[in-house]
């Protein structure tokens, strides 16, 4: 079955330090991967996506993600965390059998400590 996993419920990072939010996936065929961010009581905002090409994808708010095919991972990264980055982050993968369906991970809550 196709799936995406976010192994950490919560990640704590000190402000100014680099951050990583982990995501692994399991799909048949080529993966199409996404990251979204959700601030409290708001809808999800699209951050970035990987379709093909360069394994390092740059997105909004200084975030980037690295696609690693051998490890089936798509970790979200930022070189220097801001307190305002505190939010809920979702990794997602498009269902390769149903291009109108996207599968979300359960989310990782990121806390940036001042």
């Amino acid at each position, binding site marked *: 079955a196709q799936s995406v996993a976010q192994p950490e419920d919560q990640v704590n990072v000190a402000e100014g330090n680099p951050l990583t939010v982990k995501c692994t996936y399991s799909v048949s065929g080529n993966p199409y991967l996404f990251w979204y961010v959700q601030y409290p*009581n708001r*809808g999800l905002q699209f951050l970035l996506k990987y379709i093909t090409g360069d394994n390092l994808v740059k997105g909004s708010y200084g975030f980037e993600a690295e696609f690693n095919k051998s490890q089936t991972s798509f970790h979200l990264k930022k070189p220097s965390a801001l307190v305002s980055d505190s939010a809920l982050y979702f990794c997602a993968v498009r269902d390769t059998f149903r291009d109108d369906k996207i599968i979300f991970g359960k989310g990782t809550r990121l806390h940036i400590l001042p």
Partner: protein
Amino acid sequence: SQTIHQWPATLVQPVGSPLSLECTVEGTSNPNLYWYRQAAGRGLQLLFYSVGIGQISSEVPQNLSASRPQDRQFILSSKKLLLSDSGFYLCAWSVLQGLGNTIYFGEGSWLTVV
């Protein structure tokens, strides 16, 4: 540019009462439309999706229904609400342009059933 509107933003309804949440998308034609529910501020559950007027697919059996009376309008309904229907409901859209489609979300509707 495309925008998505979802209303009402918050709703408190008694058990057994009806429900209608509405969503409209502007700036695009023939979008795929989605209703998600998010419980306890975490994972997303896909409830319904639609690839065209009158075409609704249900992902899970439940007390809710969806309709798409116009190309860019998507409505989530219930005839009789249950306590378990409480949650954060998110409408979303995407445009079918291949497997790399991105889903964009509305701001959500908080439903509390009392």
